[in-house]
């Protein structure tokens, strides 16, 4: 069970006033707020044991290294990976995907090959593949979705012997759809095709188990799961990561260098060039511990309830249209108010202290599908309450009145 009052106390920003009003933060899809525990983990490191990790012989360096690697282990356990060698620390989802597109892509994709991407991807899981296809003369194909925001179920008809990778998000950041990842992976694997799961919008909301999913790669950002900015994870199956060439070079990812020749370190260091964001990575581990303390299953249940409530409330506004009506949804509602621009609604909600995101949410292909300029998106996290949704609802009623709708 969730003790929401206790949880809310963990997040100092929830006491903020915006234009003199209490903050109602419903922009969690963009980034989540941080519990004091995570902020403290950062301060603790800088105030007591900050030191560059790896290769150091002194006490602080060893301590920071140990805690850093313990954090990797915490995250490994959280996603149920076999080995912490399979977890690469990155700067975020976007970097994780770019690493793959360059390292895996440049060496595994050839002219005439195909990459299959869903039509509802965040730009970060679309453009790197588009550019890879350009570099390689490969074909960029996409899995369409229907007007409810559900991916075409016979997507495997798009797979052929040229297909090298399927890239799909677990939860859509623009529609909230929970995609049937496990099914997609099974069908792709049946045809010998690898699958990358973008878990940027699922990891903080629902259980993600890489072993159960059997995904080949999985990526997410730290800042969207109560962790610090500048952190992220690339999970990959060990044999795939081992076969990949390094991408960025320099620092700990190197074994030996001479002016003639360089050899590289083992996993996971092979992909971690330069001084890592070790303080961020340590704090990300603390964020995952925080999620564990509440329990991801509890979070899933609580947020599902919240989402159901939000759907009911918002649907009762006649001029409001929801985009994304899949049966399986998580964490967010995208909508428009008839005859208005999302920017207007966002601006007016803002003046009431209600933070939502408006625009294309870096998912322009979704907007193109519906031929709309963007949506208003209210996205939830563990500290949101029904009262937040009531505030949003009341705010929207006021606004429709203001706009004479």
């Amino acid at each position, binding site marked *: 069970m969730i003790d929401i009052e206790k949880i809310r106390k963990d997040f100092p920003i929830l006491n903020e006033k915006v*234009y003199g009003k209490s903050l109602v933060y419903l922009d969690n899809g963009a980034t989540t707020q941080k519990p004091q525990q995570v902020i403290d983990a950062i301060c603790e490191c800088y105030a007591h044991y900050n030191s560059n990790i790896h290769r150091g012989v002194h006490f602080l360096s060893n301590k920071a290294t140990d805690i850093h690697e313990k954090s990797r282990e915490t995250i490994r356990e959280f996603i149920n990976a076999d080995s912490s060698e399979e977890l690469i620390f990155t700067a975020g989802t976007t970097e994780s995907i770019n690493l793959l597109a360059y390292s895996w892509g440049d060496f595994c994709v050839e002219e005439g090959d195909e990459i299959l991407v869903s039509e509802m991807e965040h730009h970060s899981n679309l453009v790197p593949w588009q550019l890879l296809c350009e570099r390689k003369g490969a074909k960029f194909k996409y899995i369409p979705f229907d007007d409810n925001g559900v991916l075409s179920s016979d997507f495997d008809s798009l797979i052929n012997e040229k297909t090298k990778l399927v890239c799909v998000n677990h939860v859509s950041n623009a529609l909230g759809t929970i995609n049937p990842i496990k099914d997609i992976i099974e069908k792709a694997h049946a045809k010998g095709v690898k699958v990358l799961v973008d878990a940027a919008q699922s990891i903080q909301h629902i259980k993600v188990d890489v072993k159960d999913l059997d995904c080949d790669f999985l990526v997410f950002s730290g800042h969207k799961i109560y962790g610090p900015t500048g952190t992220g994870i690339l999970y990959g199956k060990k044999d795939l990561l081992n076969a990949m060439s390094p991408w960025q070079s320099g620092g700990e990812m190197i074994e030996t260098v001479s002016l003639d020749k360089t050899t590289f370190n083992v996993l996971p260091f092979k992909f971690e060039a330069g001084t890592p964001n070790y303080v961020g990575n340590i704090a990300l581990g603390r964020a995952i511990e925080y999620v564990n303390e509440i329990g991801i299953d509890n979070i899933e249940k609580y947020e599902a309830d919240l989402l159901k409530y939000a759907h009911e409330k918002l649907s009762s506004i006649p001029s409001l249209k929801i985009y994304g009506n899949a049966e399986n949804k998580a964490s967010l509602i995208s909508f428009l108010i008839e005859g208005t*621009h999302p*920017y207007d609604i966002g601006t007016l909600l803002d003046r009431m202290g209600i933070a939502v995101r408006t*625009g294309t949410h870096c998912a322009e292909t979704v907007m193109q599908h519906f031929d709309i300029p963007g949506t208003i998106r209210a996205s939830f996290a563990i500290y949101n309450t029904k009262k937040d949704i009531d505030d949003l609802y009341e705010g929207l009623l006021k606004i429709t009145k203001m706009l004479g709708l």
Partner: protein
Amino acid sequence: MTIQEKQQDIIDEFSVFDDWMDKYSYIIELGAEMPALDSKYQTEDNLIKGCQSKVWFHADYIDGKIVFEADSDAIITKGIAAILVRVFSNETPKDIIDADLDFIDVLGLKQHLSPTRSNGLLSMLKQVKIYALAFSNK
């Protein structure tokens, strides 16, 4: 009326609102009142980059003065554009270039000035000044 005077006029009009809702209602009203821009001027060239909503600014140079017309698909943006049109239209390039922009602050619209992509005001002001510069060289 000088730019300065027009700005003061608008500041006076806004000063009667002590509630943000009234202020925004007024901006929305200003937006609703401004005639739509002829669709032939709703071109890629006239589109202002860096706004979340679409904003078009069209400028004519008539007898040494610039005449602005504008439109937007968002009503608040259109209202703000209307304020700018009112302040800067029918002025010489030089006066526009020299104009002080503090009135934005005074109106309490500063949050629209953020140098981000979603807030159009800064981009609109830039565009107005760019037009003025362009015409001042003619």
